[in-house]
């Protein structure tokens, strides 16, 4: 509870929450907020500039960009949470196993993670999409896989620091099963950094998925994927700039919101920040590697 209070008092977290409230609101109330469906075409109003009638303009098929961006929030959040979830669940399971058992299993798992980390994030996602083929769900899997080694590394490190504690030894002495110790005693004690990474990864996932979609390998038309929408607008940039620029603003607001929230969550969970003197900021980390 204290953490939640600290989070709501954190200035940047509050700004992040406002950005995210906007995006989540768009996703949740899309049927009521969006003037039209995401694929409602009217060729009579093709490529209309922003005006009171068409707030963000229309695209080459006469679809309202406002509606498509609002509906697109659902797709972006879906990709972001599922992709982050894949990385979180698989990466944490691998990290817990490696850290808890150590030895050859640890070396094998972490060796595999090092191999995955040798690919820059977007490239790994592209390699997976090359195997699975383009599409919304394949992008989620691809982006999710690129997140696995980051969670595994973090969780393994945290597990190593916790597994030698007396209360874990006590559980061993009481004859508790390994799985029980991992889930009931180790995981709750390392959950803080996992939550921080997960919050920051949501932003990264949105960015990576948008990048893959921009390259034409993500969600396929007519789905209103923001990255794909920017891609469709790039050839119209000279004369109809709004088609490609506005969906990018939506991506920016969403990722910015998650990054600010991630910073806030990290500060709220870090006891060192609470006791730090004013002016002696917390350790900054790269919120979203490009």
């Amino acid at each position, binding site marked *: 509870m204290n953490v939640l209070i600290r989070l709501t008092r954190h200035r940047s977290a509050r700004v992040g929450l406002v950005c995210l409230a906007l995006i989540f609101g768009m996703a949740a109330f899309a049927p009521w907020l969006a003037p039209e469906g995401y694929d409602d075409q009217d060729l009579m109003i093709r490529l209309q500039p922003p005006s009171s009638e068409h707030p963000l303009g229309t695209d080459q098929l006469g679809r309202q960009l406002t509606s498509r961006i609002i509906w697109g929030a659902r797709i972006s959040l879906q990709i972001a949470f599922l992709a982050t979830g894949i990385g979180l669940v698989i990466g944490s399971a691998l990290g817990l196993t490696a850290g808890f058992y150590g030895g050859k299993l640890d070396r094998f798992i972490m*060796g*595999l993670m*090092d*191999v*995955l980390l*040798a*690919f*820059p*994030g*977007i*490239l790994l996602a*592209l*390699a997976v*999409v*090359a*195997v699975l*083929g383009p599409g919304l769900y394949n992008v989620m899997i691809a982006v999710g896989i690129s997140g696995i080694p980051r969670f595994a590394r973090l969780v393994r490190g945290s597990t190593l620091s916790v597994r030698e504690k007396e209360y874990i030894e006590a559980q061993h002495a009481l004859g508790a099963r390994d799985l029980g110790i991992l889930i009931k005693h180790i995981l709750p004690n390392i959950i803080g950094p996992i939550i921080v990474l997960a919050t920051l990864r949501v*932003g990264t996932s949105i*960015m990576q998925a*948008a*990048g893959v979609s*921009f*390259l*034409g*390998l993500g969600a396929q038309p007519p789905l209103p994927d923001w*990255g794909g929408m*920017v*891609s469709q*607008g*790039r050839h119209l*940039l*000279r004369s109809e*700039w709004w088609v*490609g*620029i506005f969906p*990018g603003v939506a*991506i*920016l607001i969403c*990722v*910015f919101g998650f*990054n*600010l929230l991630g910073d806030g969550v990290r500060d709220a969970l870090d006891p060192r920040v609470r006791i730090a003197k*004013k*002016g*002696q*900021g*917390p*350790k*900054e*980390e*790269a*919120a*979203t*590697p*490009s």
Partner: protein
Amino acid sequence: MFEYAMRKIVNAIPILIGVSILVFLLVHLTPGDPARILAGPEAYEEDIAAIRERLGLNDPIHVQYWRFISSAVRLDFGRSFRTQRPVTQDILMRFPNTLQLAMVAITWSVIFGVGIGVYAGVRPNSIGDSLSMGAALVGVSAPSFWKGLLLMLIFAYLLGWLPASGMGESFFSADGLKRMIMPAITLGTGTAAVMARMTRSSMLEVLNQDYIRTARSKGLSERNVVYRHALRNALIPVVTLIGLQLGVLMGGAVITEQVFAWPGVGTLVINGINARDYPMVQACILLIATIFVVVNLLVDLTYSLIDPRIRYN
């Protein structure tokens, strides 16, 4: 130092082998028959069988891997399914363009990012600090392809100052330099933002150390304290980041090159994926991942030279 360097090099070898296995498996995990793709949709079964035989796809998988890796170390990745030219030839033609773009991007982003980070770090919680860190966070949060299009809209289409896309004849010509500006800014903005955040935090940490208090109590000027004593130590973690970011930039170039029609390796990767040109995709991904591993190795070694404590950990 020699022992440390050898240990690091030996550690990198299994990673490189792992990378090569994953890249090799790319073709085998993909649904569909590469021979059928190469033969085309109207090919006879006999032709497909002949191609399978020629590519060695009927051999056991470990034999195929051995053939792949032994050719790869000789920089022979076969012929492109799409252009029928040797893959290495295409890559050698394009790779210098990607490298040039990444080097210019990393150079400006380090100078700019470290500068902003120092500026913010020496005046924490000031308006300048908040503004520069806010801008850095926006820089990290904006997708690179969108930043590229925004730059293109403003500087190429609205103001007409810079050419919209393509690469000049030579980097050292006025046209070449002009064409480099927008792709390098697009590619490097995220890195500059990460550098700025890291440098600021590192500066804050160092400025609070006892030896800085000692330097101040000796009566040294603030300029001397910041630049001679604090910055040099604050830059140690930033060095690691430079290496990591160079790898990120090589990956990020895939997108930037598409935005600006930059004829680099990234464009080859995307064209390769779209055309299911597996030899090309394999070679490009292997190249970028290998550079990433080697750069990280070099960073580790440089880091241990700058901070000898690392070697003893």
